[in-house]
């Protein structure tokens, strides 16, 4: 029988809390930046300028078709060689996570906008709204409702993806768990506890996504 000993591990609880806090910061930071990048990319892809469309498309495919872990390692170890400057693990991690999630957000935003009937755009134009007013007051308010479930799902994945920053020693929850493990030699308790902590953070989010999805299906 394995002799469970959570007591030893829980003595390092402050390390877990530090890790959760860092995970939270990277999640929020990369989601905020990712939304900005995603919106810009989405509008670039919907633009009438072919160069913009191509540029946005290339960026998206680059980040969607390579593993995030490779991107993180590349940004931290390889990019400095290209640029000739050192890049901190914070910068490399945040940048990569943001660009990665931004490429997926862009698709979600684009899908939501394209799902709005073109009659809505015409009705807005017919009362003299500018393209920006149309987007902000007519298209977006409707598109956001359609995007929400997919957006939350992608954001849930994003919380989990921060754990890959472990590879470049960013002190997020997974990395801190490994620190606890090396101090206590209690991998089963330490990693089980980490899993529970991720679960507790993410389960409510998936429930919210489901809720919006059900509500959307009902209103259609």
């Amino acid at each position, binding site marked *: 029988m394995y002799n469970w000993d959570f007591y030893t591990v829980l003595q390092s609880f402050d390390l877990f809390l530090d890790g959760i806090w860092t995970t939270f910061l990277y999640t929020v930071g990369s989601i905020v930046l990712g939304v900005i990048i995603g919106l810009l990319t989405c509008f670039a892809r919907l633009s009438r300028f072919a160069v913009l469309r191509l540029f946005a498309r290339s960026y998206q495919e680059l980040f969607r078709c390579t593993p995030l872990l490779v991107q993180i390692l590349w940004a931290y170890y390889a990019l400095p060689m290209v640029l000739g400057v050192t890049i901190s693990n914070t910068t490399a991690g945040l940048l990569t996570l943001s660009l990665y999630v931004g490429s997926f957000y862009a698709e979600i935003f684009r899908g939501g906008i394209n799902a709005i*009937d073109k009659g809505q755009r015409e*009705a*807005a134009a017919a*009362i*003299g*709204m*500018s393209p920006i007013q149309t987007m902000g007051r007519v298209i977006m308010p409707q598109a956001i409702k359609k995007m929400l479930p997919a957006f939350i799902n992608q954001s849930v994945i994003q919380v989990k993806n921060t754990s890959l920053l472990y590879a470049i020693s960013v002190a997020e929850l997974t990395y801190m768990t490994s620190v606890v493990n090396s101090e206590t030699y209690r991998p089963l308790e330490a990693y089980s506890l980490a899993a529970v902590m991720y679960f507790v953070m993410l389960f409510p989010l998936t429930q919210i996504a489901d809720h919006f999805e059900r509500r959307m299906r009902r209103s259609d």
Partner: protein
Amino acid sequence: MTTTQPAIAVRGLTKVFGKLEVLKGIDLDLMPGEVLGLIGPSGSGKSTLIRCLNMMETPSSGQILVSGREVAPRFRALGNKIGMGELRRNVGMVFQHFNLFPHLSVLDNITEGPRVVLKRPRAEAEALAMDLLEQVGLADKAQAYPAHLSGGQKQRVAIARALAMQPQVLLLDEVTSALDPELVGEVLSVIRRLADKGMTMVLVTHEMGFAADVASRVIFMEQGRIAEEGSPEDILRNPRSERLRSFLSRFHG
């Protein structure tokens, strides 16, 4: 002098979709106070023509002039040409499928244009909207959402939304075609009252009796051209061409 100036003038208008020439040179003067009925077989270019009048479609060649000023195919004014923004503030449009904003209440659907485009204060916009809702018989639906209205009610709200911009011209493209037959009357009577008040309108319709009643002039379109044009009496009761006669016979049964 200004009274003789057309509200909208169309000069040599053509429209091409890919290889399909949909409008093949349209010339047209819409005078203030006129109600112009546009009839013709499906695919003859009626919608394309009416949509060119407010630049919902960009003409391939030719000109649209609003109160004598040419329209540029962009939102803002360009030199002495007016932009599409100004054009659409002056020329309203009502669609076959209503296109109400589903995320806004009936009242907000109507105040959206005056508030956002004309920058009117909310109170003023709402007073105007309530007045218009009164006119279309839907004052009690001000707080309702479009999803809870019948087709006829939706279309009356859409008309009120267009009128809230206080346009000089109203364009109506088959506004009763998507309605159940028993709901057509309530929308037509709203349009009739607008005509009685002297509203300048272009009306694409398959309701020949209504066109005869309310239009001051009727145009019969065929294959992208104006095939016949005249008073409702001339066009609908004494058609000259065989084509128009056979087209009309389908509506009289």
